């Protein structure tokens, strides 16, 4: 069902909520996923953020855990 990816809602959270989510998740097992370009990442990123540029995301989904909280920016 390819249409699902277009209509599945994603929750938006602000930086305080994202910080709180990391604090409250056991082992801080939250991925901060940076989907910008490598140059933008190098210019400034959240500490420990994983870089997967948006254009590569569909080919690299296996690098992410399906049950793991993922905060995208």
């Amino acid at each position: 069902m390819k249409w699902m990816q277009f209509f599945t809602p994603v929750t938006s959270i602000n930086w305080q909520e994202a910080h709180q989510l990391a604090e409250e998740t056991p082992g801080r097992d939250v991925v901060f996923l940076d989907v910008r370009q490598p140059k933008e990442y190098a210019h400034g990123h959240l500490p420990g953020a994983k870089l997967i540029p948006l254009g590569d995301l569909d080919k690299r989904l296996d690098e992410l855990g399906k049950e793991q909280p993922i905060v995208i920016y």
Partner: protein
Amino acid sequence: MLAGKGFSKVYNLTGGIKAWNKEVAVGAEDTGLHLFSREESPEEAVVVGFGLEVGLREFYLSMQAQTSRESTKALFGKLADIEILHQERLVELYRDMTGSAMTATEFSKKIVEPGMEGGLSTEEYLQLYHIDYDSELEVLGMALAIEAQALDLYLRAAEQSDNHQTKKVLQQIADEERSHIARLSSYIDQQQDLT
């Protein structure tokens, strides 16, 4: 895209990184990772961390030697001394892991080469942060940025490690860095209140 592919806990960060009001790190995804191999043991990871703390202390001491203003000298001295506490914490972690009764001095003999905390060289830090050495807040801001770089490096090293135990130890060292950041941030807040 992710939510439609079976990822159940996906959140969009409102406002992106521009809205992030906490510390950020700079550099490419592999910056500083040459210091860590994917296969190293948890003990080896602590040794690398210790070397980075030694490097940062040396950096602060070299900055102290280059400044003439007494209060800035004292501040760099204080930051350098804090690194001794960080080093001792890593030796404690090593003792807990191995059961050895090694002192910090004995431990330091294991280090091949001190690195710079956060994985950047001293020159790279100085190029990044053009600070006014007469401003204590700017010096403290640089110290905070260095700690954020260190947090970033340990988290990325944990992510790349193939050894589960090493991954856990690197995450533990990252937690130490978080507490350094929290302490330094609250000290900066106090200083700002005074000005």
